[in-house]
């Protein structure tokens, strides 16, 4: 764990008007780890995701991706520097086929976005990559189905495949299991484990079971501050965490 962090946050703040939401977050994600971010509702997990992925700019503080500052950059630039994210609410192209969804995602690194003089069919490598992605998330049979006609967990699989498509350095998944049945959760957990092999993952999830089995390290965010970071065991036995977060769950 002594390696250079691939994603590092230093004293990141975000206020909406007078209300501070993120109040000085320091976080280091090292290459190749699966890092889970947990915290009670309203702790600022989604806001932190938005800050990192470029949807909103931090009020102050520093965010580095692989040594390059990315705070305040627009979303598309953050993505191009190697960070891809999924969304809490399914966010795909509903009126397009699964294949087309993935092709749009896979096409970007080839720099074809302004190209209107070649047919996309002739780019065999993109097609091959899309087929590989379809296989990875087991959606081959659904390639020609409209994304809006997929089942919920299939849509989440598609979403995960889309974040993988640009071969990013860091993948961020925002509550990929939200609203899933137990079976679907198990399936998606296995899928995430498989496709993030050898990649860096930052995940927000409410399902403690998922967090403790998937995460190499866990950070706990409470009221806009990280109160603890450590291995699952360390977190489980951390008094502060129990009090602030797990205790709350136990009391229920």
């Amino acid at each position, binding site marked *: 764990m002594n390696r250079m962090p691939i994603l590092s946050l230093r004293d990141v703040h975000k206020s909406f008007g007078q209300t501070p939401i993120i109040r000085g977050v320091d976080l280091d994600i090292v290459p190749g780890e699966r890092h889970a971010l947990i915290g009670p509702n309203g702790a600022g997990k989604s806001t932190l995701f938005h800050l990192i992925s470029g949807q909103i700019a931090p009020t102050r503080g520093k965010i580095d991706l692989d040594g390059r500052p990315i705070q305040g950059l627009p979303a598309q630039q953050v993505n191009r520097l190697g960070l891809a994210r999924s969304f809490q609410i399914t*966010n795909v192209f*509903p*009126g397009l086929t699964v294949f087309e969804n993935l092709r*749009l995602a896979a096409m970007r690194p080839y720099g074809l*976005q302004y190209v209107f003089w070649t047919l996309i069919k002739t780019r065999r490598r993109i097609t091959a990559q899309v087929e590989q992605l379809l296989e990875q998330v087991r959606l081959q049979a659904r390639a020609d189905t409209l994304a809006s006609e997929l089942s919920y967990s299939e849509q989440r699989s598609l979403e995960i495949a889309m974040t993988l498509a640009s071969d990013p350095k860091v993948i961020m998944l925002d509550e990929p299991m939200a609203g899933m049945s137990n079976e679907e959760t198990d399936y998606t957990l296995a899928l995430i484990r498989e496709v993030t092999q050898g990649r860096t993952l930052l995940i927000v999830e409410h399902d403690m079971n998922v967090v403790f089995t998937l995460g190499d390290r866990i950070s706990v965010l409470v009221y806009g501050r990280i109160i603890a970071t450590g291995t699952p065991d360390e977190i489980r036995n951390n008094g502060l965490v129990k009090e602030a977060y797990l205790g709350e769950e136990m009391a229920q």
Partner: protein
Amino acid sequence: MKIRRLLLLAAIIGLVLVPVLLSQSLINAAIQMLIASLFACAFSLLCGQGGMLSFGHAAYFGVGAFATVHAMNAFGGAGLLPTPFLPLVGAAMGLVVGLIAGWFATKRTGVYFAMITLALAELLYALAPHIKGWFGGEAGVSSMRMPAFGLSFGSNTQVYYLTLAWVLVSLGLLYLFTLTPLGRLTLGLRENARRLSFLGYDVHRVSVLVFAISAMFSGIAGSLQALNMEAANYVIFDLQGSAEVLLNSFIGGVTVFLGPALGAALMTFFGYLVSDMTHAWLLYKGLLFVVVMLFIPRGIAGLVQSVTADIRRQGLARMAPSMALYVAASILLMAGTVYLVEMLQRFFSQDYRSLAALNGKGWPPIAVFGSHWAPTSVLTWAAPILALIAGLAVLRLAHARWTSILENEEGVQTLLARDSAAARGQP
């Protein structure tokens, strides 16, 4: 797929044969139809595929037309380019103006985008009559087609073939565009622009490009219009042009590539046919639009698509009775509506009022549909109302039949599903 290709081939052959088969005035109408088709397809690239509803596309059509007229007048009337290549000037002008206008308009989406396009077009419409050097004031700018490559371009027929060639090539290019990376991204823009930016795309730049390409093809359409008319007038920028292309596209159906072209061709022909027959033709046009939007929101092309899909699934034999009923209902409803509209329009017209006043004794009969109807007779008003009621009744019947066919099919499918489940040994 094969059938579609054959149909396309037949349509092209039909279009090539038009000047041989039709009279001079119909050739002129056909030219208008072709131009409107290209304009509608160019508009639909932005609106149907890109999901950006422009309320000001007449602007790009107009600048294409004016650029072409000026190009025709260049070098003391010799022309900037040989006549057949003049649409390139319209294309270039449309592209440049589209890039500039698009850069501003695509900064916003949805309603705000529509408002900006509307404002830009209205700005041009308001400014144009005051810039005499460019737009020729109220009188407009006129010109002459010069002969080129041994062709005089003096007859309607030659202009028709020139227009046809440009429209076919442009439509072909617009279709190929949908198969390119940028063309695919255009669909993503419509579906979920925000997601595109999280995939690393610069949404604004992509939008500007799509806008400019749409404007460029609109410019070609405007250019063909100028070539045909040998003139351009600032009224070309009127909001009516922008509204017309929008209505045409939606009536045709923006979800199918050639839908807008079909809608524009039909509506232009409808205008040509009906505008001579009745004063109320704009009302009919409006009614048609409302009915299409209410009952077949995917337009004529969408309707054709779903009907052919149903025929394939159900077989023509099962479909035919309900389809015949639908047709009968439409005819009854149309006849009733047209009669009522014509009757009322004549009844309330100035001419009829003065006639009645001069007559002195009551209301003289009104001529509609080749016979005379007394406005005081019950039959005169009962006939259309009965036709409307009968039309509605037949419509309900057709609808009931149709739903029962669909429900039956669902029943069959659940049975089949149960059978196959049983075959797999599941409950």
